[in-house]
């Protein structure tokens, strides 16, 4: 059990069931949390709860829209460099480190990295395409709190998202993780061509033993920019179906269902911010409760930021919701959504713009 004082009280990590629980100051005090620094007149700025650490830029496959632009000969930091980054994150009170890349399995020291993270009080998790994940390899990954396998569907659906058919590879990886007893889920990227196959894909993931599905919005970064992005992003009709799709998946899939931060705008009109806050839903927390560390050790607001000025951009993105543009300024979701995905907004417009794919923004702009 671990706690971190915040202006509102504290975040407390409980292990059974695994969760971060936000508690008020009174309960935090009863739990023995020292709030002297955080509860003063000048509350400290938000610190990351979760950090996404790129452990390599190397990957043997070549996904069409890879947000990291990973290649077979990409750079990989040393073990000691990564452990130093874990040390820094642990000092800041980070709870979860998500290892990615590149393909993390291209490293031979993943078990040692997971142990190093745990020794520092960090819960290590990992995302993989599954390439190289044999049964023997899976048995070495038991220190990971969870592994997610990228799985966008069988056959054509997978190929439509990533440009190669890695579905069988992902299925083999899931079988190996299941046999090894490693908790795993799937990452499912939503694109306009595969949207109709989502429920079938989730059903297949359940058959393979996944406990969780995370739905992700395609982001314009790395090789996924420009025409690739415009060709992949969801249509507005599909965006409108998202709340109903989520409800069907929650009620019928048998899996725990997650959405990524960029999908929160798609819930507007269905929920208010207080409801989402109570459920621990996070919108764009880039530069606040989320941080990224790239292969060179540079801190950024989130993994999709690919520019050369991560510090100033992190500050700008983190402050976006404090000066919301129209029509976000009177949106019931603003406190959680925080203006939607900054990566999409900056790719398609100006950094201060609202998320242009938010249905409320689309409707507002259509009204002129």
């Amino acid at each position, binding site marked *: 059990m671990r706690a971190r004082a915040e202006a509102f009280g504290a975040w407390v990590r409980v292990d059974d069931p695994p969760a971060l*629980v936000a508690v008020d100051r009174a309960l935090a005090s009863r739990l023995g949390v020292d709030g002297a620094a955080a509860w003063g007149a000048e509350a400290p700025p938000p610190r990351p709860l979760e950090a996404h650490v790129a452990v390599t830029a190397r990957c043997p496959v070549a996904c069409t829209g890879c947000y990291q632009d990973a290649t077979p000969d990409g750079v990989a930091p040393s073990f000691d460099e990564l452990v130093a980054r874990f040390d820094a994150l642990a*000092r800041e009170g980070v709870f979860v480190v998500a290892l990615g890349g590149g393909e993390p399995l291209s490293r031979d020291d993943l078990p040692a990295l997971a142990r190093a993270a745990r020794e520092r009080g960090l819960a290590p998790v990992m995302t993989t395409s599954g390439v190289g994940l044999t049964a023997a390899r899976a048995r070495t990954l038991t220190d990971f709190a969870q592994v997610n396998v990228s799985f966008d569907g069988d056959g054509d659906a997978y190929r439509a998202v990533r440009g190669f058919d890695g579905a069988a590879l992902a299925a083999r990886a899931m079988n190996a993780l299941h046999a090894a007893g490693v908790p795993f889920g799937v990452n499912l990227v939503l694109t306009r061509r595969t949207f109709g196959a989502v429920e079938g894909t989730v059903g297949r993931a359940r058959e393979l033993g996944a406990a969780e599905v995370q739905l992700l919005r395609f982001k314009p970064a790395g090789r996924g920019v420009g025409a690739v992005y415009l060709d992949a992003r969801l249509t507005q009709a599909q965006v409108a179906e998202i709340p109903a799709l989520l409800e069907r998946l929650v009620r019928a899939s048998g899996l725990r*269902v997650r959405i*990524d931060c960029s999908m929160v705008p798609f819930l507007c009109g269905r929920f208010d911010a207080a409801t989402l806050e109570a459920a621990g839903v996070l919108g764009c927390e880039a530069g606040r409760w989320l941080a990224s560390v790239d292969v060179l050790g540079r801190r950024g607001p989130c993994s999709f930021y690919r520019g050369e000025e991560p510090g100033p951009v992190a500050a700008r993105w983190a402050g976006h919701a404090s000066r919301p543009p129209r029509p976000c300024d009177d949106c019931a979701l603003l406190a959680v959504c925080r203006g939607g995905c900054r990566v999409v907004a900056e790719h398609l417009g100006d950094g201060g713009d609202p998320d242009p794919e938010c249905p409320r923004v689309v409707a507002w702009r259509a009204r002129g």
Partner: protein
Amino acid sequence: MTTPRAPLPDGVLAVRPLPGANCSSVGSVVDMLFVAGVVASSVAVAVAALSAPEPAPAPEEPRDAGEG
């Protein structure tokens, strides 16, 4: 607009199921939004059983994550 908010114990502001395992964007469980109490009830048990937690480090000046 629907708000099927699950009841949370006194003093609990939010419950965020862990861990998730995506390396590129923050994932949030939405089960509680559609089926009230799905996760909250079990977390309530965990919260009730909380003992004094291990403190995380106090805030410090921002620094490069690469610094050891």
